[in-house]
């Protein structure tokens, strides 16, 4: 037997390719379907969806009430549903209460409204510190909250996927729903930033 390198030492690209080729041979995976999933999550499903939800809630009080009462149904009204979106809970940030979303164990994330999680959300330091010292963590994101603002950390370990409804910034009263959409960032909808007026 010639020495074979331990598979863990081989490039992860090759391990992925090996697994895919076996799954294709077994008829369990269709490469074209993989391509479609990748394209969907790389290009179509992203924080723009969540921004549309937030802009509608800011401009339509009845929609906002429905969104806060039943996030899953209200988000589905706009056509956003799918894996990791079966149990949405939307929480409103106010001048006195700030919500921050994290998944401490495995980086669960509300895909249909925010797309796939960014690097910082998956980072072990973010996941640990969001719970241990959220105020200091937010300050490092550039968000200094006054000590009298209560911070609530939402850990997405169960089936619930959280999204933050950020505060509508002052100075945007004259903007339409469509004009508000581009102001709303992924960071604001996870609670590591506020929305800024243009």
């Amino acid at each position: 037997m010639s020495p074979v390198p331990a598979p863990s030492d081989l490039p992860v690209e090759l391990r992925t390719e090996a697994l895919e080729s076996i799954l294709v041979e077994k008829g369990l995976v269709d490469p074209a379907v993989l391509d479609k999933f990748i394209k969907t999550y790389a290009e179509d499903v992203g924080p723009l969806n969540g921004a549309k939800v937030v802009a509608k809630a800011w401009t339509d009080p009845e929609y906002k009430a429905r969104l806060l009462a039943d996030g899953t149904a209200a988000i589905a009204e706009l056509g956003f549903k799918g894996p990791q979106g079966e149990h949405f809970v939307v929480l409103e940030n106010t001048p006195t209460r700030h919500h921050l979303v994290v998944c401490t164990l495995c980086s669960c994330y509300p895909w249909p409204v925010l797309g796939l999680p960014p690097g910082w959300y998956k980072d072990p330091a973010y996941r640990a510190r969001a719970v241990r010292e959220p105020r200091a963590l937010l300050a490092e994101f550039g968000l200094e909250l006054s000590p009298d603002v209560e911070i609530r950390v939402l850990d997405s370990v169960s089936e619930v996927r959280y999204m933050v409804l950020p505060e509508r910034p002052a100075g945007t009263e004259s903007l339409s729903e469509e004009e508000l959409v581009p102001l709303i960032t992924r960071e604001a909808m996870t609670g590591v930033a506020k929305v800024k007026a243009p």
Partner: protein
Amino acid sequence: MTFVDLDVVGPAAPPRSNGELVFAAPWEGRAFAMALTLHDRGLFEWSAFQGQLIRAVARAEAAGGEFSYYRCWLEALQTLLDTSGLVDSASVDERTAVLAGRPAGHDHRHGDHDDDHDH
């Protein structure tokens, strides 16, 4: 300098304009999509995959070093497929080794498989 016809600032901008690219390398996208499509076909509950992912993330963090979320993702998928009898890890290891030796051509070191090459 000429890739400017993409609307990267307006409301119609693709989501990647609102942050970084979702996959840092092509294999990450393939590993992600394999789990999704297998779940879609009803081959496992998402909670079962999530359980393996939690364990893989914990192992990676305990081991230290640079953290790669999609390495954990791939490991979780392999473990789940192995324990459920769909794809045993040894066959993935073997195939990986074969792929690693690919540039050298037909130098498969052992022929205990019915390799039916169709290329």
